[in-house]
């Protein structure tokens, strides 16, 4: 069984640009979660999608947004990039909203 896949592995952007990160959940999983792992800040919840709908979002500004497609894959978009957005962005999926989450390898976003 293929795990959660994320692309790209590494993304380099400059301040003010926009970044798009992608996630494919494990087959059969309908819930997708996004987390930010920034140096010194630990893992912070960003967004939760289930059945194509945004169910909850963490304490992040509106320039962090995303969506979930009919095939349950998901995109995370970050607009007007700032230096402090540099982090590892992790995607997780679960078969239902109250099941253990399985994580991908992450996308490392570097802002120059």
């Amino acid at each position: 069984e293929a795990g959660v896949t994320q692309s790209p592995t590494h993304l380099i952007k400059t301040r003010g640009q926009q970044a798009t990160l992608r996630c494919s959940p494990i087959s059969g999983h309908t819930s997708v979660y996004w987390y930010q792992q920034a140096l010194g800040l630990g893992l912070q919840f960003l967004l939760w999608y289930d059945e194509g709908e945004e169910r909850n979002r963490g304490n992040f500004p509106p320039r962090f947004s995303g969506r979930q497609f009919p095939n349950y894959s998901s995109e995370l978009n970050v607009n007007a990039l700032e230096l402090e957005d540099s982090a590892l962005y992790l995607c997780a999926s679960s078969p239902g909203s109250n099941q253990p989450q399985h994580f991908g390898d992450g996308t490392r976003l570097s802002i120059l």
Partner: protein
Amino acid sequence: AQSVSQHNHHVILSEAASLELGCNYSYGGTVNLFWYVQYPGQHLQLLLKYFSGDPLVKGIKGFEAEFIKSKFSFNLRKPSVQWSDTAEYFCAVTAYSGSARQLTFGSGTQLTVLP
């Protein structure tokens, strides 16, 4: 809002030593509790979980954790660690009901096992 505290940032042990990593959470309702592990260069993996029932939960690779509701704790234990247990360990909690399904993570504990 729920929060998770892991008291040890870095633990260094010799092989065969016993391990206990502390985890406390704050949340007034029913919770699901998890320990995740991140081995060097690998993604986060589920080590064990507690949803309900027996508060002593056994996970993979000989790890276990005990949920003590009165202490809001979910400490991770292993009787005898191996060099291959070197990794970062994260405690996490999610609310059992309501809209908050996301995991709230502790800050992590880096375990280094010396051969």
